[in-house]
């Protein structure tokens, strides 16, 4: 710590150059934060996916429906604990920009299948007792200022009622929370029995996809094969995969998100590497004589290396911390505007620590060559360059 003043003073030597370099680093880490949030929004669910859950969808496309009768057959397949289904409703609230997910489900089985959804017992009871009842996640409830007892009209883009109306009215009977921060609390769930009765003839008795709870997660591949074999050569063949793979596949429709994010970040950090490296190289070159003085008064080669490395790391860590802090502050604002499209848009704490680690690594890599250059200086030669 006693060297901090010296390190800090050296950074302040060329204020404009240091500020511009710092700004570049800050921008890079803001970008890192935002891209991490996008990645989290698109594939973050993979990490949270239940290892004991499989998703069964129609083999050709998820937009093709599956018979509701499959549920009973699935429950009989060895290794399956129980199954339940969901269907894409595709509705908006008041305005097309107010898009969020709403799915009809079987309430009891749905809640049993998804323990990450936390619903108070009295609200669960109300849901079971109310045919038009719906539960909604905390984020959406707060977004639209909904409360229990409200009647909310949802305009479906797919499903029509017998009178030709596409407006479905639901009674909000419960507001659920997520077990952890990664749980998406934007969707609304309502009862399948109400939905199936109230929709027009098309699609009746059909569901979007099934979720299966398996008894032994290590048997997932075998159970998936058994499920698909069960419905082979039927009018609606199935494709069964772990929930994580299903989410990953969903995100992959936009391309390989992880690769795209990694490619952008690599380009950004490579540029920052050059910018910061150049700053540090210039800083050391300009101070050759002063480094000679430090060595003359007794600083060892190792101490000189440590001083230069500490200087570059301090620069990148300050830039990284400010950039990540800004990203953390920006993401909730962006998330509000993307609630429908990217409901899980947030910067995870894990990525903050990765970012900080990256900033230290950046400081080390950009500082090591100038530091070695400083170490190799011969004192007598360096003093002549004052």
């Amino acid at each position: 710590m006693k060297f901090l003043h010296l390190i800090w003073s050296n950074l302040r030597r060329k204020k404009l150059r240091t500020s511009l370099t710092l700004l570049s680093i800050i921008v890079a880490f803001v970008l890192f934060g935002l891209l991490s949030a996008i990645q989290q929004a698109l594939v973050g669910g993979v990490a949270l996916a239940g290892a004991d859950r499989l998703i069964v969808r129609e083999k050709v496309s998820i937009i093709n429906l599956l018979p509701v009768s499959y549920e009973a057959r699935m429950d009989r397949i060895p290794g399956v604990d129980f199954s339940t289904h969901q269907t894409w409703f595709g509705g908006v609230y008041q305005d097309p920009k107010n898009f969020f997910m709403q799915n009809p489900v079987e309430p009891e089985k749905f809640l049993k299948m998804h323990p990450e959804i936390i619903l108070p017992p009295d609200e669960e009871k109300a849901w079971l007792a109310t045919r038009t009842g719906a539960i909604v996640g905390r984020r959406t409830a707060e977004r639209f200022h909904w409360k229990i007892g409200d009647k909310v009209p949802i305009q479906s883009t797919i499903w029509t009622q017998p009178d030709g109306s596409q407006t479905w009215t639901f009674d909000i009977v419960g507001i659920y929370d997520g077990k952890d921060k990664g749980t998406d609390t934007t969707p609304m769930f309502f009862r399948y029995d109400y939905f199936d009765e109230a929709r027009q003839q098309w699609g009746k008795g059909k569901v979007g996809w099934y979720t299966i709870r398996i008894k032994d997660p290590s048997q997932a591949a075998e159970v998936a094969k058994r499920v698909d074999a069960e419905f082979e050569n039927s009018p609606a063949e199935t494709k069964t995969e772990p929930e994580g793979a299903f989410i990953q596949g969903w995100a992959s429709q936009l391309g390989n998100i992880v690769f795209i994010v990694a490619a952008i970040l690599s380009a950004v950090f490579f540029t920052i590497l050059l910018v910061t490296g150049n700053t540090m190289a210039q800083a050391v070159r300009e101070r050759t004589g002063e480094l000679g003085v430090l060595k003359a008064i007794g600083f060892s080669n190792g101490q000189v290396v440590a001083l230069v490395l500490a200087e570059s790391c301090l620069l990148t860590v300050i830039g990284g911390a400010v950039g990540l802090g800004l990203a953390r502050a920006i993401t909730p604002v962006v998330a509000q505007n993307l609630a429908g499209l990217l409901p899980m848009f947030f910067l995870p704490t894990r990525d903050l620590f990765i970012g900080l680690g990256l900033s230290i690594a950046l400081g080390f890599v950009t500082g090591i060559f100038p530091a070695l250059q400083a170490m190799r200086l011969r004192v007598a030669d360096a003093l002549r360059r004052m």
Partner: protein
Amino acid sequence: MSEIKTNSGPLVQVERVEKVFHRGSEDIHVLTDLNLQVPAGEFLALMGPSGSGKTTLLNLIGGLDRPTNGAVAVAGERLEQLPDRALAAWRARHVGFVFQLYNLMPVLTAERNVELPLLLTHLSRAERQKHVETALAMVGLSHRAKHYPRTLSGGEQQRVGIARGIVTDPTLLLCDEPTGDLDRKAGDEILNLLQSLNREHGKTIIMVTHDPHASVRAARTLHLDKGQLSNGEVK
């Protein structure tokens, strides 16, 4: 092999030292078979024309460079035998340097410049500050402690340089043309200060200069020419 005996005799003992620099294929013999003894408490001036090897000799005595042949011992420590790390630690403990161009850190105030050598010690912040204040008081610059070098005159900067050189109470103070960049008045003040450090505080000082006006302040002057010392003149 050198026959220097350690832990006895003069403070500085240079024996049969040779220093050769290599420039491309050319060997430049800067010091040749040079011998020198400096007793503790002496104020020695080394004079000579440019390129005579004065600074090279000072660098060897200060452990900033190593002889090609021969031996250099200070207070019984054979410098050419010390590894780099130990030599750096030895410099921190035993030598104070005063440079012609002051060589202060422009980003640090006078007191923080003086504190630099103390950062290598185990002293606490308060203890370091006390030492810094004492050193600045000795050179008469207590009132300029918070000033940056750019706001100080040349003479004041050199006094800060001297304060930095003596703040660790080193065995030896090595001055390379300490008045070379100063006007006569400021130079005299610096020489007065060095004389006072030698006479009143018993500091052993070796000063390189080409200025006869400066050399007369020393107790002994040696002339260096073409890498060899001529007979010293004892006053």
